[in-house]
């Protein structure tokens, strides 16, 4: 099984070594794309329709914005959060601890850091898919206005990166699937409820508002909502920086913890 080695070896450059991990997950996903899309996107779609029509009839408008516009732009962000969080906890944990897929990858030139980055990038990509699907439905319902909406798509990708990195920290600490319930209950669900997805942050007590601004989902909504509904976001750089910073800090914490865990 000898082989002229030069034809077979082309080690990916350091900065691109996460790509084969991302490509592996894409390859698996593309086999099951339809059920997976329905899974990622079915639930937010039901919320959008039920709350949009049901609650929308009661609420009417928020400020000068129809409730369906308000809700669609919120769910655009929450679906990015939910998708990335699920992928980087339950699915990534399966590949790490159950299938031992990571164990196989790190006997090649790739290392734990490459695997973590690849997984986070992949979870962010899935966020992009599901948020884009929501955007298309919102557009079909007439809840999108103006050409800025296209700029919401990279916001979904950045949000996905941020939430996937945070979820990866949880995965690094998890000893079983049960552990993820804590994160869902103490992290993901509170963000879903207080970060302005379903109703404006201004409705809540001052303390809760302060807390909400300390959470990344609020900044994701602050960017995507105006873009989708036809306005330019205020303080866009600040919101982008918050999402990027949360993501980068969480990513380096996750990578450090996972390196310690897997390369002990």
């Amino acid at each position, binding site marked *: *099984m*000898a*082989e*002229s*080695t030069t*034809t*077979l*070896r*082309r*080690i*990916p450059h350091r900065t691109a070594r996460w790509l*084969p*991990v991302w*490509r*592996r997950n894409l*390859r*698996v996903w593309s*086999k099951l794309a339809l059920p997976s899309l329905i899974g990622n996107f079915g639930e937010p779609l039901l919320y959008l329709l039920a709350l949009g029509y049901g609650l929308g009839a009661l609420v009417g408008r928020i400020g000068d914005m129809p409730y369906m516009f308000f809700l669609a732009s919120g769910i655009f962000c929450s679906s990015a959060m939910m998708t990335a969080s699920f992928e980087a906890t339950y699915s990534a944990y399966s590949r790490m601890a159950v*299938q*031992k*897929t990571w*164990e*196989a*990858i*790190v*006997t*090649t*030139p*790739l*290392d734990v850091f490459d695997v973590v980055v690849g997984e986070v990038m992949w979870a962010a990509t899935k966020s992009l898919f599901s948020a884009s699907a929501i955007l298309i439905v919102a557009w079909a319902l007439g809840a999108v206005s103006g050409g800025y909406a296209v700029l919401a798509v990279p916001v979904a990708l950045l949000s996905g990166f941020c939430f996937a990195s945070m979820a990866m920290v949880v995965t690094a600490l998890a000893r079983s699937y049960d552990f993820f319930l804590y994160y869902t209950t103490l992290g993901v669900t509170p963000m879903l409820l207080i970060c302005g997805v379903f109703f404006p942050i201004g409705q809540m007590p001052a303390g809760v508002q302060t807390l909400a601004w300390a959470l990344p989902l609020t900044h994701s909504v602050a960017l995507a909502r105006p873009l989708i509904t036809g306005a330019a976001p205020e303080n866009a750089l600040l919101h982008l920086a918050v999402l990027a910073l949360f993501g980068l800090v969480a990513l380096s914490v996750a990578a450090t913890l996972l390196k310690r865990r897997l*390369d*002990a």
Partner: protein
Amino acid sequence: MSAPVVVSRALTKVYAGAPVVDRVDVNIDRGECWGLLGPNGAGKTTFLRMLVGRTPPTSGEIRVLGYPVPQQASAMRARIGVVPQLDNLDPDFTVNENLRTYAGYFGIHHSRLRARIRELLEFAALSHKADAYLSTLSGGMLRRLSLIRALVNAPELLVLDEPTTGLDPQARQLIWQRLRSLRSEGITQILTTHYMEEAERLCDRVTIMDHGRLLESGHPRALVSEHIEPHVIEVHGEGLQRWHKETAARLAPRHETAGDGFLYYLNDERPLLEALSGQERLSFLHRPANLEDVFLKLTGRELRDG
């Protein structure tokens, strides 16, 4: 003489205060098949994990193919193949997809790959399973797939952790035959095993490890003749204790209990065989000494479930 493929000096790994690999020095030459033998928990897997750069040594150093490890493990791993103790094939993929995906981790995904995969599948007698999912493969087939997956980058060094543990005899024979053929192509092999037979058949040199220490090293046959008398007689049966005390212990000063029987080690087997011929209630087996005898002599007989 080319430089050794692996050199370690005082390589040590401590877990929870206890050394699991303890001041290990090895030199593994290009082209040889080097076997690491030891009971469960001896530290074999931990040694291999340090060798491939998966865990940093607590102290000491190791170089593989000239690269200091773990500092340059990534470049080193591009040139080696690893068959892990437990299969970690990708259950989401077919046989073919497993190989393609794994090749992707080495940055290989171009036209040459298709032909390479065809060769590898043929080599492992898996061509008919190219598009099958792993759930339809037998244990032996999975192990062969793990082997050719490790060959996808045309490695110079192949590291195998218990390559045939848990396989039936036919499946083992096939793996052994393939490993010998790789050996004849000049691929250096490092393998761990606790099957003496495997080590005797495959390895140019075996090293016996216990409690993290290397005890002895050499060609399997040389180790046997150095440590064990050429003849071994295993005796079982009713009245053994008494016969042992009255007759055998005197004829074979070097002996050991083994379960409910005795093992006698002899340079001249004839007196004991003569004594046995009158004993109808005893059954015995006369065989040449083997590596297992060396192994048991050096590592003791108590059970290791670690």
